[in-house]
């Protein structure tokens, strides 16, 4: 039944992405672009609603190409396609004066195709395949502007990504030895050979997760992120920050909970090391964001910090931490998209890129700054916005697992939240309460405003009516429940 929905969700954006380069008619191309994004979202939602699944697509010698969807897959597929739709609609106006709009649209769609593939991958090989695709296909988004700086940034992005991918590959080989299968199975499939070589297996798991953590921007492999995000056009930065980092998160999640299994890693040195790295990242990212003066780079550092909140949750290897991590992944993706799009709206309308230049901008573009305020409140974790809920479950989850490290973890999360307030609130305050030299209204057009408003309201709605989403994440997370002591 409906098994075509999952392939369709992948093929649609890819095929349409190829077409983008061939179409000469601007308006027709833009319509196709938006329609493809909407259709992809529809496919993803329909696939989730009908619960369609698909398993082995092709055997290629040792490797099998497996696609299908479980709840995690559906969740991420819907999240990715929804955010791509928002950023895509925004980009129509943002890039309207761009000579290379077709190229941007094309790679944007191809990246989406790869990300849909990531969501629907059902084994490590397929995941790795799409992961590399995503890296290569999203690279043109980084150097879209074509400046010297953006090319350097893109090469840095490529370098870090490949290094991370090499670590993943190393771990992948060993995972194939120590697990019955590298297919994603709930609770993992760690086997006797793995038990016998536990130290080596842990090293393999560590490498796998560290490699994926490179995409998620975890210290020490985070340097590409503050370099690559600011140079990309705003919709692309939004996607890089919100979605591509989540590909790393999804990879870690699959390795930890679906390949090795949480009970193998719980209490091991891998857990301690990864948690400590995640906490260092949470602090480092916020602190450097606080010190940063370039608007988009500040947001990029903020991503470094916030994605590691997710990782802190995942590395708890308990249902509570897993669920909290997933919630934070969703909420961060939505709020960071909104923030980057706001930054894009400001840059597009006024050309201002430094934080101190934003004084008085809120009075000129009130709706944009209103959305920025909503997203900031959520990112800081002020109730009743969404971020508060995830922060609560992450911190209480950590406390119940770790003891002293949990207290340190909760404290780091809150210090980072204070810093988050410190680097986001002044933008709103100076923007909205001080007068600029020039007070002409600068509000952008509807194609920019509608995605922003929808995202901002979604954050409020998700924060107040959390039950459906948190119910879903709890169901997903319950796979690691049986083995709890």
């Amino acid at each position, binding site marked *: 039944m409906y098994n075509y929905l999952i392939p369709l969700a992948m093929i649609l954006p890819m095929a349409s992405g190829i077409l983008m380069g061939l179409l000469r008619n601007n308006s027709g191309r833009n319509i196709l672009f938006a329609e493809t994004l909407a259709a992809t979202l529809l496919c993803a939602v329909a696939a989730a609603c009908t619960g369609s699944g698909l398993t082995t697509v092709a055997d290629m010698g040792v490797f099998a190409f497996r696609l299908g969807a479980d709840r995690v897959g559906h969740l991420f597929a819907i999240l990715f396609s929804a955010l791509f739709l928002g950023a895509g609609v925004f980009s129509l106006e943002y890039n309207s004066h761009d000579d290379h709009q077709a190229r941007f649209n094309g790679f944007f769609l191809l990246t989406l195709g790869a990300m849909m593939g990531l969501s629907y991958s059902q084994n490590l090989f397929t995941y790795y395949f799409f992961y590399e695709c995503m890296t290569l296909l999203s*690279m043109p988004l980084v150097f879209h502007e074509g400046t010297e700086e953006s090319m350097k940034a893109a090469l840095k992005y490529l370098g870090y990504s490949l290094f991370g991918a090499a670590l993943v590959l190393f771990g992948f080989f060993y995972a194939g030895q120590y697990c019955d299968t590298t297919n994603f199975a709930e609770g993992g499939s760690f086997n006797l050979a793995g038990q016998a070589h536990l130290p080596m297996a842990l090293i393999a798991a560590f490498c796998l997760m560290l490699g994926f953590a490179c995409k998620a921007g975890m210290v020490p492999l985070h340097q590409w992120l503050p370099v690559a995000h600011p140079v990309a056009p705003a919709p692309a930065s939004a996607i890089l920050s919100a979605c591509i980092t989540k590909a790393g998160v999804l990879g870690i999640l699959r390795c930890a909970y679906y390949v090795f299994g949480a009970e193998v890693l719980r209490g091991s040195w891998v857990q301690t090391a990864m948690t400590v790295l995640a906490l260092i990242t949470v602090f480092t990212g916020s602190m450097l964001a606080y010190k940063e003066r370039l608007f988009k780079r500040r947001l990029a550092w903020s991503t470094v910090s916030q994605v590691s909140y997710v990782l802190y949750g995942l590395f708890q290897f308990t249902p509570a931490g897993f669920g909290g991590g997933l919630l934070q992944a969703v909420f961060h993706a939505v709020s960071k998209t909104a923030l980057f799009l706001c930054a894009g709206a400001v840059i597009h309308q006024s050309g201002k890129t430094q934080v101190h230049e934003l004084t008085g901008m809120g009075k000129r573009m009130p709706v944009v700054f209103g959305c920025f305020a909503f997203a900031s409140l959520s990112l800081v974790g002020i*109730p009743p916005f969404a971020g508060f809920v995830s922060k609560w479950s992450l911190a209480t989850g950590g406390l119940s697992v770790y003891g002293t490290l949990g207290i340190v973890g909760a404290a780091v999360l809150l210090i980072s939240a204070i810093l988050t307030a410190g680097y986001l609130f002044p933008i709103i305050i100076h923007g909205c309460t001080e007068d600029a030299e020039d007070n002409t209204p600068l509000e952008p057009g509807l194609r920019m405003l509608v995605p922003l408003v929808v995202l901002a309201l979604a954050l409020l709605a998700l924060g107040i009516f959390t*039950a459906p989403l948190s119910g879903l994440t709890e169901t997903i997370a319950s796979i690691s429940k049986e083995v709890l002591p």
Partner: protein
Amino acid sequence: MYLLILVLLPMAGGLFAGIAGHRTPKTDVPISLAALGLEWLLCLGLIPQTGKTLDLPDLVGLGLHFQVTGLSVLLCVVAATLWLVSGIADREYLHHDKKTARYHLFLLLTEGAIMGVFVSGDFYTTLVFFEMMSLASYLLVLHNETEEAREAAGSYLAYAVIGGMVTLMGLFLLYNALGTLRFDDLPAAVAAYEGNRSMLYAAGLCTLVGFAAKCCMWPLHTWLPKAHPAAPAPASALLSGIITKGGVFGILALAAKVFVHDVTAGNFLLLFGVITMVWGGFMGLCHTNVKAVLACSTMSQIGFILTGTAMQCLLGEENGIAVWGTLLHMMNHSWFKLVLFVTVGIIAHTTGKLELSDLQGFGRGKKQLFVIFLLPALGIMGIPLFNGYVSKTLIHESIVEYIHHLSHAGMDIGLYKAAEYLFLLSGGMTVGYMVKLIVCLFFEPNHDSAVQAEYDQTKPAASPFLMGLLTACAALCPLLGMTPHFTLERVAAFAQGFFPTQGMEETVAYFSPANLKGGAISIAIGAVLYVVFVRTMVRRRDSTYCSPWPKVLSLEDSFYRPLLMVWLPFVGAVCARLAASLFEWLAKLVNKLLFFRFNPIVTPPENHRFANYDPHPKGRRGNLGTLNFGLTLFGLGYVAVMLYLLVRNVVL
């Protein structure tokens, strides 16, 4: 459902007023007044609902839990009344203001949020609404958008955010240790707690911080003397009168639900309560800005309330007297501050000034204004026959009773004796600074006779309706104070259910010689302080007023701001940069080692088009050498492979 409407009605009204006022100016005023009036009626309707609870497990993560206790009813009614009166007052102050729509939006949001705090049934719900209240009221402080207001609002926001986060940390710890945050379940959970008790104290201390910052407990009070002069007067009345009580509510919940009859917590609270009380009173004597004096007075009175809360912990089961004192002083203080701030607001609105030296002699011959100001002032001083006397006497009596208990048990009473003396001293300070205000505003002629002549001509810029309303509010002070057994005690008995108490065993003879003596001592100290301190140090020879307190000793400017803005970020940034660049350095080192005395094997092509796109390619194959083209081909191939695999799978 009723509770949900109680919380949401002002918020909805605020949104409505904000949008309407944004579209067509001035429409926001009637809408917000209507919302305030309705909310007041709703709060009155809360009285028969006492004891009801409401569970909304699906909202905001952990779920919201509401509960109506006597305390919530009392605070809700007080809050709604204050909001209504200040709403009526701001209609006149903000007459020429263009930003009223925003003001009303946040005024009503704050009201809804504080209702949520007062009817919350667990700490999680308290925190959710407390944070909303903090952030919404930030806009009230900022409203005037002057340099001063910006600075004050900055402090206020910093306290709100940092305090809120520390409280959140405390709640994490509490929740982890006890497994529940519900007020009803907490006492049992604490009794059953078997872990390390210092963990509970740490959790309690963290939780306390945010609430303490909001109710300006020393040393977290520095936002207060800045915020009040900067905010519009009706907003100051609310900040002082009731928003501080949001913080007190949290502390009361901690004291009555978590640290039930706990001596350590009681002593800790007593220490800080006494410091707050004395320090606030002293700063009140020093300050020369009318609103700043009233702000410090708020701090001092909150110190009285905290002292009462502490005695409530210390006295154990027989703490009825402390509970009553705390409750009544909370209510009375809100009332005084409402009338005082709105009156000062009228004066400030008429003259545009707030410094005592400028306002000197403004009230000479303005009888109604004098009465309105005098009655609550007498009340806050604790003059017998006024309501402040009753509540202060109750708190004083509770200290005396505890000393009595201790001396019976043969324990050391020295420190508590000191607390009692400091209590009387603070009462004296209250008298001192209020006398300072009254004498300066209503008796002394201005040091500049031209200004005095002008003041004699001006009338307070307030409608007769507002003046009448304020007179009625002020008249309540002696009315309640003269009939404590019929009014105040009934209110206290109604609201005491929140506390672990047996209630009062016997009534207090407020006008017995022993109790009158306490009042008399305070008044005498106040007179001495006024003559010795105010007349010599604060009031200059040329009869202007100038604060003797050096600015360098400001806790915020000399310590908190440098600490938070300079030192900590510096240390943090050094650590963060180290952590962030270690790997970069490592990579560079490896690079240097690998290519030591060799040229790199792979050199990126010098071709500028390697990763670039030529907008106008030369020749037909202009773009073929670019990475773009390569990646496009890759994408094509990838899609082709995918299509093949999928089609094969579907066909076979």
